[in-house]
């Protein structure tokens, strides 16, 4: 069992008046053995949340627990190793001066594998697990392709015997044919090892393919979360609908996405009052002036105790995404 739980997590960059809240009051649960897909545009705080979970960034509020044990703070390395992370860029996530075997072997838990022979055998097993030829153990990263490097990075994460893995945009630097291999691997690891994952990506189709649960992040907050088929099939938050409508290959291209198109991304130094999405919202006060609530009241104050939650005062009833256009 391994449940990764974020409770009221906030992460702040900088101090005093220039402080930016990159992540604000995030509540999120990655249940044991499930893949939770986290989507949102760049700057929405997805990576910040992951980096905070593995202790690379300090929390300014809240706590992150794995099976009830707090991960960040006084807890030592032992429990932190239960959570591993794979990074976006396979070209900077491996030490260029260490062989593949050395990189993976370094992450093995001390005391679990003794002796050079046993370590090599274990590294070989891990490489096999991520579909790499163990004969490449002595290769340097520069001899590998991007997809192979990303699989080495996964093997390194698995070497620590984590209970949950954070995958931060692990396929966005890869070619499409290589991406398919890595996605298949993610699925296999989840289904056959029961590995829990927080899978971060801006690509909705990719997230939909691997995830059981989905959370949507906007301007540092989770605005919608629920089972994948619910969120993709019956999106409730207008931002989620905007995201889904933007997926390439969905209907005619019309250069008339009036509100969202011309609005600037949220300035993290000066976030909008009330609902953070209101300056861009297609169902908000910009087009429907009577909806003043959005300007003043933060929808996050209203907490739902439903399986499928959306942080919107006017979250849509359950209507299939295809019938629910952007322009209502």
């Amino acid at each position, binding site marked *: 069992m391994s449940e990764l739980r974020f409770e009221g997590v906030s992460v702040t960059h900088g101090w005093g008046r220039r402080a930016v809240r990159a992540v604000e009051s995030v509540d999120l649960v990655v249940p044991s053995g499930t893949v939770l897909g986290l989507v949102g*545009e760049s700057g929405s705080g997805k990576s910040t949340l992951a980096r905070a979970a593995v*202790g690379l960034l300090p929390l300014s509020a809240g706590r992150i627990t794995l099976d009830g044990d707090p991960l960040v703070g006084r807890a030592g390395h032992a429990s932190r190793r239960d959570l591993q992370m794979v990074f976006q860029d396979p070209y900077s996530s491996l030490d260029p001066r260490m062989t593949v075997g050395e990189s993976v072997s370094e992450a093995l838990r001390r005391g679990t594998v003794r002796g050079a022979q046993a370590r090599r055998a274990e590294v070989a097993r891990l490489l096999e697990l991520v579909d790499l030829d163990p004969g490449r153990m002595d290769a340097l990263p*520069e001899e590998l392709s991007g997809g192979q490097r990303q699989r080495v990075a996964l093997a390194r994460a698995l070497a620590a015997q984590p209970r949950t893995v954070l995958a931060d945009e692990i396929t966005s630097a890869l070619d499409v044919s290589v991406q398919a291999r890595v996605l298949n691997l993610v699925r296999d690891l989840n289904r*056959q090892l029961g590995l829990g994952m927080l899978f971060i990506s801006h690509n909705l189709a990719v997230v939909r393919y691997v995830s059981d649960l989905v959370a949507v992040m906007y301007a540092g907050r989770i605005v919608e979360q629920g089972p994948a088929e619910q969120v993709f099939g019956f999106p409730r938050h207008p931002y989620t609908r905007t995201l889904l409508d933007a997926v390439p290959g969905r209907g005619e291209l019309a250069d008339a996405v009036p509100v969202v198109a011309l609005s600037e991304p949220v300035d993290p130094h000066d976030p909008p009052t009330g609902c953070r999405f209101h300056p861009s919202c297609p169902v908000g006060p910009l087009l429907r002036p009577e909806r003043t609530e959005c300007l003043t009241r933060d929808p996050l104050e209203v907490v739902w105790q439903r399986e499928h939650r959306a942080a919107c005062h006017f979250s849509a009833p359950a209507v299939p995404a295809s019938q629910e256009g952007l322009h209502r």
Partner: protein
Amino acid sequence: MATTRRARWTRALRTPVGLAASGFLAVVVLLVVLAPLVWGERAEVVDTGNLLQGSSAAHLFGTDSLGRDIGYRVLVATRLSVGMALLATVIGVGTGLLVGAAPVVLGRRTGRLVTGAVNVAVAFPALLLALFFATIFGVGARGAVLAVGLATAPSFARLTQTMVASVADRDFVSAARIAGVSRIRLLVRHVLPNIAEPLVVNATIGAGGALLAFSGLSFLGLGVQAPAYDWGRLLEEGLGRVYIHPEAAVAPAVALVVVGLAFNLVGETIAKGMSPRATVGRTAGAPHPPGPRTATGPRRLEPAGSTLLEVEDLHVAFPFAGGWATPVRGVSLAIRPGESVGMLGESGSGKSLTALAIARLLEAPASVRARRLTFQGTDLLTADPRTERELLGASFGMVFQDPMTSFNPTRPVGRQLAEVSQQHQGLTRGAAWARAVDRLREVRVPSAARRARQYPHEFSGGMLQRAMIGMGLMGAPALIVADEPTTALDTTVQREVLALLARIRAEEGLALLLISHDVTVVRDVCDRVLVMYAGRIVEELPTDRLGEARHPYTRALLDAVPDLETSRDRPLAVVPGRPVSPDALPAGCAFAARCPLATERCRTDDPVLADAGPGQRVACWQTGENLGLPAFPAATSRAATP
């Protein structure tokens, strides 16, 4: 591993610099060890009959005020001079490394304190510090070594800090930290090896500097005291009569220069040996890269005349390790006015190079050859540079992947747009500015007049990409080439930019060549798709018939991309193996090694692009027979239970 490391060192030593360095080093080491033993006594022999003599058969560099042979003294002084320089460098680099790397080990708060202290120390000039320490530690060799060593420490600490900080932010250090690697090990295994290269070079340059510093101190009488002597003292003694017997001063000076040079060369060689990115010795390549074939070039599908851009048998080659690598080999395409063509392929397929070659943006050492390259009826291969620039500047727009790096960060966006019109249409400054604002409005940049005065960093990525497209519209373009224009953008913004391109194309009657790795993007915007693999167009077909793609590679690309309808219960199709490298192309079809349908013929004969239906061309021997077969079996699951 050991062999590659050894090979690297051997290679580094075999370069001219490596050879010179090892030669110099051997001489210096020999002198340091042997000179005092062999000539030590002769250098001390006082000859009162020959005081202050010039060069003679007995004394090549003359004698000093006690009649001692200057030549021998210079040789013997090597040990002291080089020894002091090295010792001081060790002290300086050692202290610098300790202090500079301390923040990694100490953690955030204490680390910041150390950093601050170093910053203060760096503010004092090294010379001032050296004199200060020399006074504290007392005059003499020992004092001088400590003084020079400690005086160079702050700059090394600063250097180390900067480099450590740049490495410590990289993902592999974060990954090691997450894996529970201790801070000390993090420093020793991950950080230091990756900054060692510049550190070694700087340390050897520092050693050269220390050599000079000691000579300076001894010259001023603050360094080595009689009866001991180093090159600085010898230089001082000889300098007094430089107009009568210059050889007395020249001998130690030459020694200083030679050893200083040796230090630097040795540093260069060590750095080269340590770098994992071994430099490939670029020997003079074959005289000509493979060019267009004259006999059996691919046939064009479209008749000439109505075409806007016509490319026939385009080859792009780069010199590579004694030969040529040809990432683009025989691309032929034609674009009609107002047409929208997508070019699909993975990284390394040659699609971007094709675009750059068409835009005439490739320069030496790249070699661009084609049988035909015409734009609006003008032959770009033979046109003089002026005509070419005017034609492309006015009628050709190019949009790159990363808008942030495509603009000059120090000039307002509007000004950069206006420049295009000033250059190519000869508009006045004011008129060009007005057009820039108008074009920004055209690409739907809100409050364009105000925005034009802003700098690139004040734009969001999507807005900047709009401005980039606006820049392409400054002239009266007939063709816009967009190379992955939305890859760096968020999905929502991507959609807007694509929609913008589609609208502008419709309104202004432009032709568009959209280069992308993403099938879905191409499908949304383009009428026709060209699929590239290993520098060739392997398939061409109308977008609405993508479902009937015949080339196994095209089908694999289509199957590998999940969309919102993909079944979550089946694995995605994968292409086994890796793309071929442009410097090692196989004899037959470049895709044969990865192709499930490949036969013997595919491995020996290169297929040519041939008609395969309305508007469709395929370069594959197997398309006809096996159309019904699933191209790629889904990957079998590999993960086992632990």
